[in-house]
């Protein structure tokens, strides 16, 4: 079971839900109600799950984009590489070839099209991926985009390729997605079995929830369900929307200053309010039902 946790709007509680669900399900793994848990923090621009799970990192390596490197002994400055590049990442000006690494997507088209076989590729590191264990035990992994870098997608892609196990029955893989609805979110959700949307019952929460549902359900064809966080604040909009769209609401977490204060110190809800452990195990059972597993 691969579960993506998304929201559209930022700051609705994706990471809180991901961390608590991971802890609850992994500690129950010996019984029918639990599973082996992997948590991947795919919000590589601002990864925060480690602040709550405090994993011991055991492996890490640099990732990024394979950019062209020109062998000037072979290059005839024909300009074919610049002609095929869709990102203006390589230019040929008289007898010079300029590479603009931050524009390169690493597609390899220049290498394939060079008639002189004069292009090799080298890895340009734009982030790191790392993994280890957190208590639970939770198999933890995260990607971290280097500050000043624009492209989150290559880091997310390589994180998922590295860590997600081939067989995922009796295993829960949680993907903590970034906010928004564009390419990093799609890259995070791709290949999952279901998306849990964490939202808050406010006009901003609802507006962005609709957009996130468009991505997950309408574009990717995935089953979606909703978790309402800070229930009680705001208005009825989210409830009405879920009812009209037939989207199940699997859990409600009330607006509770104790939860917000615990969060501010990096404490999980399960640590602060132990009654939530059972509630997150129940959430997992409901998720499995929605995903048809």
């Amino acid at each position, binding site marked *: 079971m691969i579960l993506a946790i998304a929201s*559209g*709007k*930022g*700051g*609705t509680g994706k*990471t809180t839900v991901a961390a608590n669900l991971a802890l609850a399900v992994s500690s129950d793994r010996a019984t029918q109600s639990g599973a082996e848990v992997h948590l991947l923090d795919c*919000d590589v*621009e*601002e990864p*925060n799950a480690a*602040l*709550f799970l405090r994993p011991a990192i055991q492996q890490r390596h640099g990732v990024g984009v394979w950019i062209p490197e020109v062998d000037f002994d072979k290059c005839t400055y024909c300009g074919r590489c610049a002609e*095929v590049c*869709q*990102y203006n990442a390589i230019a040929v000006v008289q007898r010079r070839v300029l590479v603009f690494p931050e524009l390169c*997507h*690493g*597609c*390899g*088209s220049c290498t*394939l*099209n060079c008639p002189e076989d004069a292009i090799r590729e080298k890895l340009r590191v734009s982030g790191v991926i790392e993994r280890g264990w957190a208590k639970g035990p939770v198999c933890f992994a995260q990607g971290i*985009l280097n*500050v*000043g*870098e*624009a*492209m*989150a997608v290559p880091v997310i892609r390589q994180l998922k390729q590295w860590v997600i196990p081939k067989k995922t029955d009796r295993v829960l893989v949680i993907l903590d997605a*970034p*906010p*928004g*609805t*564009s*390419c*990093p*979110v*799609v890259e995070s959700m*791709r290949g999952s079995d279901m998306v849990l949307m964490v939202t808050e019952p*406010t*006009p*901003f929460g609802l*507006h*962005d929830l609709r*957009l996130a549902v*468009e*991505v997950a359900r*309408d*574009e*990717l064809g995935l089953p979606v369900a909703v978790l309402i966080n800070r229930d009680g*604040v*705001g*208005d009825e909009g989210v409830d009405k929307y879920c009812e009209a769209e037939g989207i199940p609401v699997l859990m409600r977490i009330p607006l509770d200053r104790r939860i*917000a*204060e615990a*969060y*501010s*110190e*990096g404490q999980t809800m399960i640590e602060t309010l132990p009654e939530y452990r059972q509630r997150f195990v129940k959430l997992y059972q409901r998720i499995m039902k929605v995903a048809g597993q």
Partner: protein
Amino acid sequence: MKQLVVLSGKGGTGKTTVAAALAHLVSQETSIVLADADVDAANLELVLNPTKLKEQQFMGGKLARIDASLCTACGTCAEVCRFDAVIAGDESYGIDELACEGCASCFYQCPAEAIYMEEQHAGQWYRSKTRYGPLFHAHLFAGQENSGKLVTLVKHQARLLALDADARLLIVDGPPGIGCPVIAACAGADLALLVVEPTISGVHDLKRILGTTEHFAIRSLVLINKADLNARRAQEIESFCASRGTVIVGHVPFDVVVTEAMVYGQAVTAYCDGLVSHALRLAWERIKGRLEE
């Protein structure tokens, strides 16, 4: 004309609330133009209730398409694609539009010339009228790429009008994160206002967004939102900012009036004249001083 961009790194810290309040406060003093640079999940329109004056299509990058009548199912496209975007079939292959990055590698390698590149209608952008001034905003369609390009377009249009109308300030409401759309939102800014909350994630993410604005040599000011949620973390932000020579322009207390104002579609400073509004007024006085430096 000066340009102020509101950023946060972490989502949900109150960027849009602050941007809307500034729009209200500043428009009482001078003429402004507004740009919503969160094109994934544009929320400023929910507060400002704009009247659309002009709507235009945003054409994003190109995507590959396969003409099934020419495809011989040789599999070359799948071999060269590095984005997992080719869907294999018995008689002809297809393209996964959400995975395709438009690199055209398959287009150049296809021996049957069955692949063509097609420009995508990736979103809409708008020029609107609001009670505080003109607003430029956009909607990137679900799952599309090139959000940075759309942010650049929206800002460019806003800037042109601001120069034309001799507006004194362009306020840009930025997206969360530190990647491509954030970098696009930052470009050309005279000052960045970083809205941060006193939580363990807020502190972590502030360091990354401040690293990003410093990387692009943009002066930054910090506004602590929900400042009374955790006094110790607020203190940590203050010490960190002091060590970096970054000025803190205000402490906005946690108050449900912020959510109420959102529900009623009002800028919080126009909705209620309490502690939150007082803090925001004070912050604007300080920002104004810095903008004039």
